């Protein structure tokens, strides 16, 4: 059946918004701190769907969270969460999707391009999240980095490598579906 690309991408970006929400509940036990799959899905949305539809998926996710759906990390929701200490990380996902999508388009659709794009995206999340955490809590910089950045770096590296590996499998599937359009 001939399905318009717009319709398919609308469904896919809604699906990715739901995946990002479910990612908050999917914890993989690796070492003492379990890895949560939420930001992996944000970066994968940017690469697989592109800047426009990846951004739409993220916008929908933030909108539903702001409306009170329990979709943010740990099953919370509400505008208070976006305005709270960890709100910078949530809002930082928006430029992260833009940066990841743009770099992925420029470098090309290969595993190294994906890894570089996702590293840049993760960096943008920290650039937005860490200063926000400092402003919201009033903690000194060294403590902010200890609480809001250092414990997650190893997990992020693992997630980026795993995401690049997953994208390698998923891109042909998506391309095959898009060819049907």
């Amino acid at each position: 059946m001939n399905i318009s690309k717009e319709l398919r991408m609308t469904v896919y970006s809604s699906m990715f918004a739901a995946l990002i929400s479910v990612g908050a509940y999917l914890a993989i036990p690796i070492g003492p701190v379990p890895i949560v799959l939420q930001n992996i899905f944000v970066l994968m949305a940017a690469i697989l769907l592109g800047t426009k539809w990846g951004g739409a998926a993220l916008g929908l996710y933030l909108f539903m969270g702001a409306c009170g759906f329990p979709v943010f990390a740990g099953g919370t929701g509400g505008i208070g969460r976006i305005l709270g200490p960890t709100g910078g990380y949530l809002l930082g996902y928006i430029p992260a999707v833009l940066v990841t999508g743009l770099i992925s388009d420029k470098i090309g659709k290969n595993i190294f391009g994906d890894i570089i794009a996702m590293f840049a995206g993760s960096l943008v999340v920290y650039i937005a999240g860490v200063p926000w955490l400092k402003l919201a809590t009033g903690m000194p910089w060294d403590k902010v980095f200890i609480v809001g950045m250092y414990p997650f770096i190893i997990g992020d590296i693992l997630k980026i490598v795993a995401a690049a590996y997953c994208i390698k499998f998923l891109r042909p599937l998506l391309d095959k579906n898009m060819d049907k359009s």
Partner: protein
Amino acid sequence: MGKVTPLSYRYDSFVLFQIDVRCKIICIFFLSIVIANAHFLQLYLITAIFSWLLYRSGFNIRRLIRELKYFFIIVIFLFIIRTITASSSHISIPIFGFINEFKYIEIDSVKIDLIGILNYINANILTHIPIDKDGLTDGCQVSWRFFLIVIMGILFSSSTTASAIKSAVMWFLKPFPFIPKKRVAVMVSLFVRFLPLLLEKATEVSDAQKARCFHLRKNPVKKIKNITVPLITKVFNSADNLAIAMASRCYNENRTEIAEHNLLRPSGYEINFYLGTIALVLITLFI
């Protein structure tokens, strides 16, 4: 039959299920700000209101607790972490005072010096962990707020249909001409439809991987890949089937909508919810 999660909508005649969804969204918007800044008085009040709403909405509290057992573990974890990080001094708490009468316990005819072990824990671990009254208060407040936000989300999503949310989204987006309202509204209803489906698929994938002992693997990248690839493949296929179903029913953005007044119909009880929310905002601001 699909498993009904606490997030799934179900019908009830209670007022929470009948009030206008726009009222619910506005109240949630303000309540989430109130909860984020609430102290014990506000927390007691909101807990009493939410308990009443849960009871009257016909929730089976035992089942809800069972469904949310992992969430309670997160709440306890959050409480411990916040208590420790917010404390600056040590206080001695007679945690082990009540077991003085048992000097030894016997397991498989091996006598274990319980008091000795507890004294060791007390001297070598607990005395190094800062716990004070401020820390306990902060830990209690933060975990309580977190708990209430989740209960609020459950009350909202279990009492509101996807089509009502879609209509409310279109109504709220009316003042913004540059946003494609109908597409956003469709995405919202798809999102609400996908959420329980994804939780179900994630459980399926996780169980299938456990059955194959994948959880015993040491390689973290493979662990992530083993969950993510099958989950997204399954969900992509479901999404594709949905897109085909929509296209075969001639879906387009200019179709006839269900009349807004059918879905966004004030029940007359909205004023009570608005007044309650305003009262809580004022209590938070001035007390």
